[in-house]
C-alpha cells in the first residue's frame, strides 16, 4: 500500500480523466441500484401466487348471438360435455378469472349499521359447486356449495345468492377475530341482501393485480345471463392442458349459434396481464447489462491509452527493478482509487435518484443494502476491466527504457 501516495499524486496531474471515469462510475451506481430495485419489485409482483393450478388451467370465452337459444340450458350442456373430455379434472362456469383485468367487484357489510366507506371490497367469482376444484382452492373451514344453492341472474329474474365461500384474507378483513364461518354478511347497506359464509378457502387473487385488496375474493353459487357472453374455467390433469384446450375448443365451436372468442391458458393470461411489468424487467435488465458493459469498456479503453502513453515510464520502472506484479498492482490500485471516488459520489447519486423517482413516480424506496452490493459489484467491474491493460503494461520490456534516449 506504500504505492498509494505516488499513484494518488500522479492521478492529480490528470484530474479531468479521473473525474470523467469517476462520474461514469457514480452515474452507473445510481442507475444500476435503482434499476435493480425496480426489477426486483416487479418480479416479486409477477411471482405472487394466484391461487390457481396455474400451469394446468385454461379459460374459454364464448359469445352467444342467437337470442332464441336457452342460455341456462346451454350452460348445463356445455359443462356436462366439457367435464366428459378426457384429461379434464374440473370445469366450472365463471364470469371472471383471477388477474385477468376484467371482473366483478362488490362490497360486503359485516353488520347492517355499517356505512358504505366501512364496507369491505372484494372480487366476486360466480361459479357452481365445481368452482373450488376448478380454481384449485382448498377449503380451510366449512363446506362447498350444493347444487340446490345455485341461483340465476338474468334480465327477467334477479335471484340473489344466499351463501358464499370467502378467501381467508376476506374472512379476516370482515371478521378480524377469526370467527367468520357461518356468519351473515350483507351485500348492500342497511341490512339488504344477507348471505351466509358457508366456507373459507386458502387463497385466490381477484381480477385486478394492482388493487390493494387483491387477496380478498369470494365464490358465489350463481350464473349470470346478461348478454351472450359465457365463460368457463377448465382445470386439466397435469400435462394434459394442450389436449384439453383443443378438445374443449372443438366442442364449443360445434354450436353455430355462438363464436368462441377466447381460448387461453392461464400462463398466457398471466404474461398478458403482467406484460408491462415483464417489459419493465426486460428493459431495465438490458439497461443494466449494457450500462455495465459500456462503463467496463470505457475503463479498458482509457487504461489502454494510459498504458500506451506511459510505455517509457513503465519501461524505466521495470529497468529500475519493479516486478511485473508491481506494474499490474499500480494500475489496479489506480483504478481502485478512481472507482472509490466515483462510488462515493455515486452513493449520493443513487439515493438522490431514488428520492426523485419515488417522489415523482412512486417507484418505492431502495433498501439500503442495495448500495453496498452495487458498490462491491462496481469495484469488481473496475478491477476486472483494468486487468487486461495492466497485464499489457506488465509485458513492457525493461529494455524499452534504454531505447530512443
Amino acid at each position, binding site marked *: 500500500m506504500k504505492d498509494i501516495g505516488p499513484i494518488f499524486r500522479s492521478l492529480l496531474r490528470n484530474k*479531468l*480523466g479521473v473525474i*470523467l*471515469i469517476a*462520474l*461514469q462510475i457514480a*452515474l*452507473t451506481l*445510481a*442507475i444500476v441500484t*435503482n434499476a435493480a430495485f425496480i426489477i426486483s419489485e416487479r418480479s416479486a409482483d409477477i411471482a405472487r401466487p394466484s391461487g390457481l393450478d396455474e400451469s394446468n388451467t385454461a379459460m374459454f370465452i364464448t*359469445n352467444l*348471438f*342467437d*337470442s*332464441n337459444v336457452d342460455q341456462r340450458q346451454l350452460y348445463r350442456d356445455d359443462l356436462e360435455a366439457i367435464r366428459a373430455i378426457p384429461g379434464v379434472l374440473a370445469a366450472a362456469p365463471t364470469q371472471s378469472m383471477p388477474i385477468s*383485468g376484467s371482473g366483478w367487484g362488490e362490497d360486503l357489510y359485516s353488520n347492517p349499521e355499517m*356505512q*358504505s*366507506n366501512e364496507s369491505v371490497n372484494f372480487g366476486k367469482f360466480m361459479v357452481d359447486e365445481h368452482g373450488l376444484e376448478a380454481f384449485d382452492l382448498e377449503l380451510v373451514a366449512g363446506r362447498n356449495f350444493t347444487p340446490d344453492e345455485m341461483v340465476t341472474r*338474468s*334480465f*327477467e329474474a*334477479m335471484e340473489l345468492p344466499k351463501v358464499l365461500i370467502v378467501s381467508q384474507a376476506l374472512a379476516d378483513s370482515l371478521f378480524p377475530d377469526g370467527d367468520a364461518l357461518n356468519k351473515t354478511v350483507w351485500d348492500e*347497506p342497511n341490512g*339488504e*341482501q344477507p348471505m351466509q359464509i358457508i366456507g373459507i378457502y386458502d387463497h385466490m387473487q381477484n381480477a385486478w393485480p394492482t388493487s390493494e385488496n387483491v387477496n380478498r375474493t369470494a365464490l358465489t353459487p350463481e350464473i349470470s345471463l*346478461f*348478454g*351472450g357472453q359465457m365463460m368457463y374455467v377448465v382445470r386439466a390433469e397435469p400435462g394434459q392442458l394442450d389436449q384439453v384446450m383443443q378438445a374443449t375448443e372443438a366442442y364449443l365451436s360445434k354450436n353455430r349459434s*355462438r*363464436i368462441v*372468442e377466447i381460448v387461453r391458458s392461464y400462463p398466457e393470461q398471466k404474461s*398478458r396481464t403482467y*406484460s*408491462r411489468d*415483464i*417489459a*419493465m424487467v*426486460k*428493459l431495465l435488465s438490458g*439497461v443494466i447489462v*449494457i*450500462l455495465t458493459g*459500456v*462503463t467496463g*469498456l*470505457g475503463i479498458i*479503453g*482509457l487504461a*489502454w*491509452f494510459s498504458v*500506451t*502513453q506511459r510505455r517509457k515510464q513503465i519501461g524505466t520502472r521495470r529497468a529500475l527493478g519493479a516486478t511485473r506484479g508491481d506494474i499490474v498492482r499500480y494500475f489496479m490500485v489506480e483504478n481502485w482509487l478512481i472507482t472509490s471516488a466515483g462510488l462515493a459520489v455515486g452513493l449520493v447519486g443513487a439515493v438522490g*435518484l431514488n428520492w*426523485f*423517482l419515488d417522489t*415523482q*413516480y412512486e*417507484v418505492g424506496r431502495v433498501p439500503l443494502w442495495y448500495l453496498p452490493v452495487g458498490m462491491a459489484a462496481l469495484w469488481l467491474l473496475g478491477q476486472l476491466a483494468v486487468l487486461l491493460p495492466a497485464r499489457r503494461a506488465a509485458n513492457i520490456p525493461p529494455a524499452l527504457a534504454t531505447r530512443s534516449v
Partner: protein
Amino acid sequence: MFSYYIRLALTSIRRTPVLSALMVLALGLGIGAFMTTFTVYYLMSGDPIPHKSDVLYAVQLDNWDPNDDPTESASDVQPQLTYQDGQHLMNADTPAIRQVHMYGSDMVVVPEGDDPPFNENVRATYQTFFSMFDVPFIYGSPWDKRADDDHASVIVIGRKLNDRLFNGENSVGKSIQLNDGFYQITGVIDDWQPTPRFYHVDAGRRFSDSEQIFLPFTRAIDLVLGPNGNTNCWAPLDDSLPVIEAFLKSECVWTQFWAELETPEQAAAYKDYLDNYVRDQKQIGRFQRPLNTFISNVREWLVVNRVVTNDNRVLVRLSFLFLLVCVLNTVGLLMAKFLGKSGEVAVRRAMGASRQAVFIQNLVEVATIGVAGGVAGIGLAWLGLKGIENLYRGYQHLVHLDPVMLATAVCLAVISAILAGLYPVWRVSRQAPAGLLKAL
C-alpha cells in the same frame, strides 16, 4: 478544404479502429436507448386530434358515494357518466355546438354464405360523433339525426370490415347481420385510429383498435347491448324495477360524454350549465357530494387519465442518464485519443496551420464519429422499438419511428459527440507546438 478534413478524419479514425469503434458503439447505445424510450413517451403524449384538441371536451359529473374520499382534481372523479345524466345532457339545449353520448360494446358479425361468424367491437353513439371527431368517410355519410330519434337499425362500418365483407366495394345501402338482426350501412369510414384512443380511455384499451362498427346509441339501448368497457356502481340498483330499467336509472357510470365548445366563453357557459344541472339534481336527492363538475379538452383529458404512465417517465429519465454515461465515456476516450495525437498536431501547427484550422479539423473528426454514432443509434432505436412492440401488448399503433424522431436522433448524436469532443479538441489545439516537437 472540408473534404480534406473529412479525409483526415477518416484516416485518423482508421488509425485507432478499436477506440473509434468503442466511441461509436457507446454513442450509438446511449442514443438508441434514449430514442427508444423517448419515442414511446413522445408518441404516448402525442395529440391524437391536433386540429380539434382544444375544442373537444370530456365531461365529468361527480355523482359518487358521499362517504368516499373528497375530490381534489378531475383525476379523482369517475371518467364516465351515468346513462340518465348523459341522456339528459344529450337531449337538453346546452351551449355546446355538438355533443355525443356513447359507449363501447361488441357484436357478432354473421357473414352471408359459409364464412364463420366473428366478433367486432361496436361503438354505440350519435351521428354527431363523426363530425365532432372529424372521422373521414370513403363511402356514404353518417346516419342522419332522424335515425337517432327513430332508434333506426343503421350502421357505419370501418374500412377493414368493408374490405372483409364487400372486398372494399361501396357497400352503402346494403345490410349485414349483427347478432340476430340486420342493419343497413349508411357509410364506410377510412382507417381512423386516434392514438391514444382518447374518446374512451379505459385502462388497457387506450391504444387498442378503434371500432369497425358504429350504431345509434338509442338502438343499442333497445337491443340491451351491454357495455364491454368499465362499469362502476356505488349505489344498489332499485330492486322494485325490472333489472334493465333499474340499471339505466342507477348511479352506475359506463358511458362517455363529449361536448364541442369553440370559445372559452362557450366553455364557461357550458360549465355553468353543468353546475346548474347538478344543483337541480341535488334538489331531488342525487349528487350528495360537493359540487364538482369538470370539462377537460383532449390534452387535459389525457393528463387527467394518466395516459403516459410513470413507467414511461422512469424509463425516459433512466435512459437519459444512460446517455449521459455514454457521453462521458466518449469524452474520456476522445481525451485519450487526442492526447495521443499531440505529436501530429504539433507537426501541423509547426508547418503553419493556425489554431483555428487545427480546431476545426479535429472537430470534423469528432462530428464524423457523432454521425456514425447517430446512425448506429437510429438502428438500435429501431430495434428497440421493435422490441417494445413485442414486449407491450396493444402498442402496435403507437410504435414507429416518425420523421421528427429521426431528425432528433441525428441532431442528438451530433450534438452529443460535439459536446463530448469540444473540450478534448480545444485542449489539443491549444498545445504549444514547440515543446511537443522536441519530444518527438
